[in-house]
């Protein structure tokens, strides 16, 4: 279990290898990578800036991760979330869930993303190609996605 908030990029293979190194009890590793898209609601973007709440971010990500471990038999997990200004195509977030079996790994990774999106104190500001900045609105669909997993 580990969470990291960083401005640097991450390497999926490297992070996955660190979780599985020297172990033979892991049969399934699911990774989710979120990337900055170049078009948002029809507007071309030049950048995405991520602000966060230092301290609470790490605490909340750790709570989300602990919740996943309480719900599924996970051998290992990782959450990395980037902050700062990112270009379209750049990596934003990496979630990894490792388990003996694939369904636990899939469900836990899916859960981690749903909960991260509704709990972790990050805020996205889009900069359009013409230089206009606007804060991204929270999506009702994200709240519904998180609600799929029931009360915690």
């Amino acid at each position, binding site marked *: 279990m580990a969470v990291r908030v960083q401005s640097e990029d991450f390497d999926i293979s490297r992070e996955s290898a660190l979780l599985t190194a020297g172990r033979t009890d892991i049969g399934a590793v699911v990774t989710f990578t*979120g990337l900055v898209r170049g078009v948002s609601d029809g507007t071309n973007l030049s950048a995405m800036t*991520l*602000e*966060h*709440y230092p*301290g*609470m971010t790490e*605490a*909340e990500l750790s709570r989300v991760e602990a919740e996943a471990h309480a719900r599924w038999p996970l051998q290992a997990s990782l959450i990395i*979330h980037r902050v700062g200004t990112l270009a379209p195509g750049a990596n*934003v*977030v990496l979630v990894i869930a490792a388990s003996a079996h694939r369904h636990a790994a899939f469900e836990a990774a899916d859960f981690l*993303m749903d909960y*991260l*999106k*509704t*709990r*972790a*104190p*990050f*805020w*996205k*500001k889009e900069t359009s190609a013409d230089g206009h900045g606007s*804060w*991204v*609105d*929270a*999506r009702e669909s*994200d709240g519904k996605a998180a609600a799929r997993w029931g009360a915690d």
Partner: protein
Amino acid sequence: MTVRLLYFAWVREKLGRTEEVVTLPATVATVADLMAWLAARSDNDQEVFSRVGVIRAAIDQTHAQPSQAIVGAREIAFFPPVTGG
């Protein structure tokens, strides 16, 4: 009671500040009380803190409901719904 307030995203931008330290009267007992007290300070504060259904709060780095008591809090943050991931 003296507490540090932190602001993020468009709450921070609209208020024009990142944080401040305020001393609260004893009548301010909950997050909702605090928002009402802050809203009464200026038109700018009113514009932000009257949006009770929108603005979210955290007490000492944990999400807090409007009804939650703020007694003993060292740090209270206000921010829009989160949009990470």
